[in-house]
């Protein structure tokens, strides 16, 4: 199966000094997604996960690397070419906040039909039929087509946004925090919808989230971003159950759970002392927060390396991948009273 989305060594920088040594928001990011696959991208605020998705649709200034969608190079498209690529509707981008990404003055039907109206696809009747089909596909009643978005619930609004995205029959769907504004039940509703759509439409889905639990259930593979670098990627269950990067381990250990089991581990993965003075200079991006960092980590930036981990292909960017876990098995310091203290000193 060929990769529908291929991102190679992507670098993005904003501002006037972009490309000339300005601070890079993304650097050396390589990932891919196949048709019918769900790729989860996870990272904290400012890790560059939204920038990554926006780069694919030409909303972030790319200063290096290549982005290929369905075999076509779309890196740095401009003007006419960019508009034609967008009009083809092959890539759809779902915004974080469904309420603000829908025009409050347009009815649901008008909003969903907009991508078709923009390109002048079909007659009015044909468009109406495709809108009805899209609404049906995302599990919304056709009767909602005359409503304004303000009169819908959060879950319904997100479905309308998804209907607007699938109405063009896209090949690639990029969803930026699609469920962060929803409660648990609605969140699962929407995630299940993505799962169904990728089977029905054979579409590649990239779901961006800061919340592990919303990805764990549906993503086939997961990519972990930290400060603009991809620190780890691989099959979801493998990555989350046996993290190769200390940051991934910290993420999984920090995720709240209805079972109390990982509280102590999270504390051991945090750095308890102040970050070392060399934190900002080159080296591994996570070194400043990594309890296992040493001299080597500060000197050389960690590269994405492919690891043969059993049958699954995994990539990790860590100088101590595979060895830091041993330090965890050393007897722990005296257990903390109730919970491990946070970063106190």
């Amino acid at each position, binding site marked *: 199966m060929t990769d529908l989305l291929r991102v190679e060594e992507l670098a993005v920088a904003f501002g006037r000094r972009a490309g000339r040594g300005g601070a890079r928001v993304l650097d050396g990011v390589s990932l891919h997604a196949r048709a019918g696959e769900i790729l989860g991208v996870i990272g904290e605020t400012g890790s560059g996960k939204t920038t990554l998705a926006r780069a694919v649709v030409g909303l972030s200034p790319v200063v290096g690397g290549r982005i290929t969608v369905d075999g076509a190079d779309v890196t740095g498209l401009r003007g006419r070419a960019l508009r034609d690529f967008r009009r083809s509707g092959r890539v759809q981008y779902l915004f974080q906040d469904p309420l603000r990404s829908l025009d409050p003055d347009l009815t649901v039907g008008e909003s969903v039909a907009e991508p078709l109206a923009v390109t002048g696809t079909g007659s009015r009747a044909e468009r109406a039929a495709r809108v009805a089909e899209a609404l049906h596909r995302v599990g919304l009643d056709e009767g909602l087509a005359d409503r304004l978005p303000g009169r819908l619930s959060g879950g319904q609004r997100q479905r309308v946004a998804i209907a607007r995205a699938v109405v063009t029959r896209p090949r690639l769907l990029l969803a930026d925090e699609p469920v962060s504004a929803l409660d648990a039940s609605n969140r*699962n509703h929407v995630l299940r919808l993505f799962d169904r759509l990728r089977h029905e439409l054979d579409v590649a889905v990239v779901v961006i989230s800061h919340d592990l*639990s919303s990805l764990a259930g549906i993503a086939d593979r997961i990519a972990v971003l930290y400060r603009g670098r991809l620190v780890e990627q691989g099959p979801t269950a493998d990555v989350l159950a046996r993290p190769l990067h200390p940051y991934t381990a910290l993420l999984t250990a*920090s995720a709240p759970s209805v079972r109390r089991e990982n509280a102590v581990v999270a504390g051991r993965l945090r750095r308890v002392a102040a970050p070392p003075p060399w934190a900002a200079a080159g080296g591994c991006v996570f070194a400043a927060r990594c309890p296992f960092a040493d001299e080597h980590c500060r000197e050389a930036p960690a590269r994405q390396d492919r690891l043969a981990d059993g049958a699954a292909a995994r990539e990790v960017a860590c100088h101590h991948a595979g060895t830091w876990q041993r330090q965890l098995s050393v007897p722990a310091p005296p257990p903390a009273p109730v919970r491990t*203290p*946070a970063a106190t000193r």
Partner: protein
Amino acid sequence: MPASPRDTDGAPGRGDLTAAPPSAAREDVLAVDGLHITVSGGRTEAVRDVSFTVRAGESVGLVGESGSGKTLTCRSVLGVLPPGCSVSAGAATLAGTDLTALDRRGWERLRGVRLGAVFQDPASYLNPSLTVGRQLAEPLRVRKGLSRADAHRRAVELLGAVGLHEPAEVYHRYPFELSGGMLQRVLIATAIAGDPDLLVADEATTALDTVVQAEVLDVLARLRAERGLALLLVSHDLAVVAEVCDRVLVFYAGEIVEDGPTEQVLAAPAHPYTEALLRVASIGDWQRRELAVIPGRPPEAGAAPPGCRFAPRCAHAAAACTATPTLALTDAGPGRRTRCVRAAELDLTGAAPQEVTA
């Protein structure tokens, strides 16, 4: 200065960071009794018959979907109900003070002194043009009459107590120089500056990243252990409540449907809605699975369907569930209550039955 008796006998010594183990006498800090809250000028009832207590040093979590009444309940305790909302019946008592009878001045004496609060968006509670240290020290000078130097020293202590690195340095920072997690810690420091009896955290970690959220939750848990602080935590995420709370109150459509010690509720829920919440919550084993959903939608705000309000969405619903106009919260074992008529006959599955003893 506050004139309530509680302040003269309870406060001394609690300000010291190192001292003050959780008090042995577990008196009720907050008692809410039969609380009803109406919205849109009294036309609709959004919260019905809510009763619970929070003891000293205890942490209680309110959990439920948006619109379940958990936030209104918590705001009524803080006296900051949105316009048009009011307490129509019932009482809330904070360590002897009747909150429902307080006037504006009374609230001012209470808030920030005996009652601390932290909310979702920390940046909007801080003045961007003043350093965080100054905003923390000023209430100390005004409310506690500390000198400038003492207030500074105390503020730095507080910033350290909430787990900020180099608190003396952070003191001189402006809000925009700090990250969301750091701002939330600053707000927690502000909230505990007056040595409150009760700290209310309303979705305080919802907007934070996973790692930061875990750290802030740890800070709350530690403050509770060190200072005997009672904690009322409101969250839509059962997993967050499970991480920090001794007791959990499950809200649905304006009512408490279940109340009990967290471990017991998670291991063996007594209400089908709690079971449903557990099914959709994050489990933490990272295996691919069919994601569970709760069918249907919660009733519209103010709609009061007869009997059990969860019945239309409940897999275990029976005729008895909707036979009576209202259901009472009944005892379901020691320290547990549930609003389900079939509680005794149902055998509901919990999240981690093997870990009850842990």
